[in-house]
C-alpha cells in the first residue's frame, strides 16, 4: 500500500452562519485506504466528506485532495471532482435519463469520451454492480437498492481515484442494505480509496483500515477497527458503540 496521503486535511473549520460544524479537524487518508467515519447525527461527518469534493467549502484550514489544494473559488474544483466520486444518501439519480444515460452523461459531457466508449464503460460497471438488465429503465422503475447501485456505478464510470459515500444505506429498506454493501465490499477489494460515512458496523469491521469517530464537529478517535471495536479509548465512543451495537 502506498503511504502517500491522497487526502490531507489540516485544522479544518467550517461554519454554517453561527453554527460551528467542523472544529479543528485534521485527518489524512492514504492511497488505497478505506476509512469509515461514524458518530451521532449532527457530528459533522457528512460536512467533512462534502468538503473533500468541495460541495461544501471549509471556512479555514488547508485541504489537499489528490494533489489539488481545495479552497473557496478555486478554479481546480472541476478537476478535483473528476477524481473524487460521491455517493449520496438519497441516490440523486437523474430521473429524466435512463440508467444507461445516467452513467454515460458524465464521461461524455465532462470527460468528452465518445458515445460508444461511454456506453461500453457504462455496461461494464453495470455488470460490476450486478444489474446489467436494468440499463434501459428509468430510475423511478428501480428499487432503492438498485438505484443506489446505479449511483455507485455512475461514480465509477468517471474512473475516479477516490470514492466518498455519504450514508449510502440510510435511506434503504433493510432487505436492500446488503446488496449495496456487497457492492461496496467488492469495490474495496479492488483497492479503491474509500471514505465511508455509515452506521453499518458489520461493513466497517469487514473493510475498514481505519475507523474515525466524530462528535460535535470534532474527530474524537482514530483507530484501526480491531482496537476501535474492542477497546475504544474514549468514553463517548464506547457509549456510541454500545448504543448502535446493542441490537
Amino acid at each position, binding site marked *: 500500500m502506498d503511504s502517500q496521503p491522497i487526502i490531507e486535511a489540516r485544522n479544518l473549520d467550517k461554519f454554517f452562519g453561527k453554527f460551528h460544524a467542523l472544529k479543528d479537524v485534521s485527518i489524512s487518508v492514504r492511497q488505497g485506504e478505506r476509512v469509515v467515519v461514524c458518530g451521532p447525527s449532527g457530528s459533522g461527518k457528512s460536512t467533512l466528506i462534502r468538503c473533500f469534493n468541495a*460541495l461544501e467549502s471549509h471556512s479555514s484550514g488547508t485541504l489537499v485532495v489528490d494533489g489539488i489544494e481545495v479552497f473557496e473559488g478555486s478554479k481546480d474544483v472541476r478537476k478535483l471532482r473528476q477524481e473524487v466520486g460521491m455517493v*449520496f444518501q*438519497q441516490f*440523486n439519480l437523474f430521473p*429524466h435519463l435512463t440508467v444507461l444515460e445516467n452513467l454515460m452523461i458524465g464521461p461524455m459531457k465532462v470527460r468528452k469520451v465518445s458515445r460508444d466508449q461511454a456506453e461500453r464503460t457504462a455496461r461494464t460497471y453495470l455488470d460490476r454492480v450486478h444489474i446489467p438488465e436494468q440499463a434501459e429503465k428509468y430510475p423511478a422503475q428501480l428499487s432503492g437498492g438498485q438505484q443506489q447501485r446505479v*449511483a455507485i456505478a455512475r*461514480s465509477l464510470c468517471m474512473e475516479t481515484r477516490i470514492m466518498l459515500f455519504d450514508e449510502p444505506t440510510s435511506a434503504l429498506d433493510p432487505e436492500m442494505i446488503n446488496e449495496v454493501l456487497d457492492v461496496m465490499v467488492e469495490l474495496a477489494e479492488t483497492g479503491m480509496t474509500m471514505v465511508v460515512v455509515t452506521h453499518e458496523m458489520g461493513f466497517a469491521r469487514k473493510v475498514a483500515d481505519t475507523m474515525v469517530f466524530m462528535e460535535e464537529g470534532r474527530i474524537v478517535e482514530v483507530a484501526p477497527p480491531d482496537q476501535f471495536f474492542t477497546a475504544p479509548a474514549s468514553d463517548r465512543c464506547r457509549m456510541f458503540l454500545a448504543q448502535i451495537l446493542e441490537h
Partner: protein
Amino acid sequence: MRSFIDRMRWPDYLIVAMLIAFFGYVWFTIEGTLNYKWRWELIPGYIIGYHTGREAYFANILLQGLAATIRISIYASILALVLGTILGVARCSQNLTIRMLARTYLELLRNIPPVVVVFIFFFFLSQQLIDALDLARWSRNIARQEDIWLWELFFGDMRRFPSIISGVIVLALFESAFVGEIVRAGIQSIPKGQREAARSIGMSRLQELRYIVLPQAMKRVVPPLANQFISLIKDSSIISLISVQELTYKTVELVASSRMIFEAWITTAAFYFVVCFGLSRLFSRLERRREGQA
C-alpha cells in the same frame, strides 16, 4: 352519469328563473328604449365574404383578424418562451447583478399597467428596431412580388408585416416576465441533490443547468406554460392599441363602419372564447393523458 336536469333541485330552478328574468329585462331595455336594430344576418358575411366580381369566397375582416391573432400569438409565445427561459435562468443566477437586472425587469412589468407597457415597448423598442432594420421597405418589396402565398400564410398581408412584427415583439416582451417566473419556479423546484450530483461528477454550472436542471424543470412547467399561452391569446387584444390589425382592431373597424356594435363584439367574444376554451380543454386532456402514462 345522471343528466344535468335530473340533478337540479328547487334552488337551482330558482336561480335559473332569476337569471332568465334578468337577461329578459336587459333584452327588453335594449329592444324598447335603445331602439336597436339587430342585423345578425350580416355577420356571416363579415367572416367569410363573397366577391361577386370574382365569384369567389374570401376571408373577410373578422376571419382575417382571427387569423392575425392566432399567428401573432404563436410567434409571440415562441419568442416569450425563449426570453422567459433566459429570464428565469437569470433569476436563479449566482451573479448578483444578473439576478438584480432580471428582478428589475420583472418588477417593472408587474407594476405598470399593460397598456402603458405596450406603448412604451412600442415607441422605445420595436419601432426603433423596425426602423433600424428597414423592415418596412423590405416587406413592401416582397408585397410587390408575385406568388407570395407562403409569406402570406405565415404573416398575412405583407404590407402590414412591420406592424405584425412590432405586435409580436411587444407582446413577447410583456409575457416573457410571466414565463420567466414560471421557469424560475420550475428551476427552483428541482431538488438540491440533483445539482449536487451533477457537480459531483464534475459538471460545470452551465452543463448542470443544460443537461440536468432545465430538462427536468421545463417538463414540470408545461401545464402552467400552457395556461400562460391562453392568457397571451387574450392579452393580444391589447396590441390593437398600436394598430396591429388583429381581431380586436378589426372589430373596432367593423363597428365603426357598420354600427353593428352588439353583433360584432358578441361575435368577437365568441371567437376568443372558442379558441381559448378549446385550447384549455385540449391542454387538460393532454395533461391527463401524460399523467396516465407516468
